[in-house]
């Protein structure tokens, strides 16, 4: 059994850990509110963008010659996966959930005998993936310096993806991120961004638009922007999810630490009492033997 001194030290150390996790929870809660706000504020843009593209693709005259970003290259040989994770740990299952989702997708792709390329955004995803898929990772981006998700960063990723697409390096592009539902639930998502997948979303308005310049030109300008927008949306959702996940993880950790302190305190008191009893017995039996 541990000595009294050891128990005392352990109690102190668990208590200080509890303080840290509690502080982290508070910070995450504050950041979560901001991240959630910006995720909500960012929605109109991507929704409107989607709408415009939908209207455009409905109005496009020559479907055969549609821009490649919309209709694809006509084959699905090489898949590019953009896996978006956080740069920091201690956020529960946030990163593992994305990685799990991504890995099952990777396995499917490889089983089908297709080629796989990976871009990781955020260092945690890179750490977890490079062990198994090290040689498939072609790029690793991390935005450690930026405090909040911003469009500029997303645009950088988007431009890179488009550059690679135009160079013919891949045919299909999918992004992986966590969609923020609420503080306890984040849903890992796989979203295909190239070619654009608009199935299931039928546009209600059959109104025809006037285009200036013509549809094709607008589309070829708009689609690259849409890629960046989708990536930005994913980044916003991700950062809200990260904070939410961290908050609940730290909440659990704080509670567990509290339980541990209680248990250790009981143990400490018991052994203290046992020691006193032992001493008393020794004194009494010593006195009796006289």
């Amino acid at each position, binding site marked *: 059994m541990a000595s009294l001194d050891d128990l005392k030290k352990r109690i102190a150390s668990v208590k200080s850990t509890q303080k840290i996790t509690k502080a982290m929870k508070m910070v995450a809660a504050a950041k979560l509110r901001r991240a959630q706000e910006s995720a909500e*504020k*960012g929605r*109109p843009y991507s929704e409107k963008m989607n709408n415009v593209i939908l*209207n455009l693709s409905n109005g496009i005259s020559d479907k055969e010659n549609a821009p490649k970003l919309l209709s694809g290259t006509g084959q699905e040989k090489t898949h590019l996966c953009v896996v978006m994770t956080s740069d920091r740990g201690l956020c529960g299952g946030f990163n593992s959930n994305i990685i799990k989702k991504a890995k099952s997708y990777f396995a499917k792709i490889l089983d089908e005998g297709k080629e796989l390329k990976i871009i990781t955004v955020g260092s945690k995803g890179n750490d977890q993936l490079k062990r198994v898929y090290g040689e498939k990772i072609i790029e690793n981006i991390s935005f450690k310096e930026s405090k909040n998700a911003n469009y500029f960063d*997303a645009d950088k990723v988007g431009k890179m993806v488009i550059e690679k697409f135009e160079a013919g390096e891949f045919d299909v592009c999918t992004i992986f991120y966590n969609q923020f539902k609420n503080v306890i639930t984040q849903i890992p998502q796989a979203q295909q961004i190239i070619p654009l997948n608009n199935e299931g979303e039928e546009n209600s308005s059959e109104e025809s638009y006037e*285009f200036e*310049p013509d549809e094709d030109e607008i589309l070829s300008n708009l689609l690259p*922007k849409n890629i960046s927008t989708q990536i930005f949306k994913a980044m916003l959702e991700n950062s809200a999810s990260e904070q939410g996940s961290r908050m609940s993880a730290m909440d659990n950790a704080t509670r567990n630490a509290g339980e541990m302190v209680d248990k250790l305190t009981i143990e400490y008191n018991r052994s203290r009492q046992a020691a006193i009893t032992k001493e008393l017995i020794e004194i009494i039996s010593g006195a009796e033997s006289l």
Partner: protein
Amino acid sequence: MSEEFKVEIVNPEKSFLVKDDVSEVVVPAFEGEMGILKDHISIISFLKPGIIKILSKSGDENYYVEDGIVEFKNNNLSILTSTIFNLADMDKSKQQDLLKQAEEEANKTDINDQSKYLADQKVEVLKTLN
């Protein structure tokens, strides 16, 4: 109702501006400036660097944009843009910064014609502001 319609400017971070008492908007569309009044036909177009003028009862406003898409439908004008500044809030140093950036971009040799054209446009617009 009078000759007013609604305008909404959205950037990726937030809904930048919503106004519903606008009488006319002039946007720098790609093929030249375009004035939009109430009951304009539905149109989608995209923007080049320039000034958006919004004329309304509560006063005129000017915004500098670098790119974007406009969509007009049912007397709703939506402008999507990634870079927008209110000219009233923009001081000289900010203008100079943007101008310097744009000039650097325009002087690059390894860019294609279109981005060169856009960068030149930026420089031109920013110069007229000063």
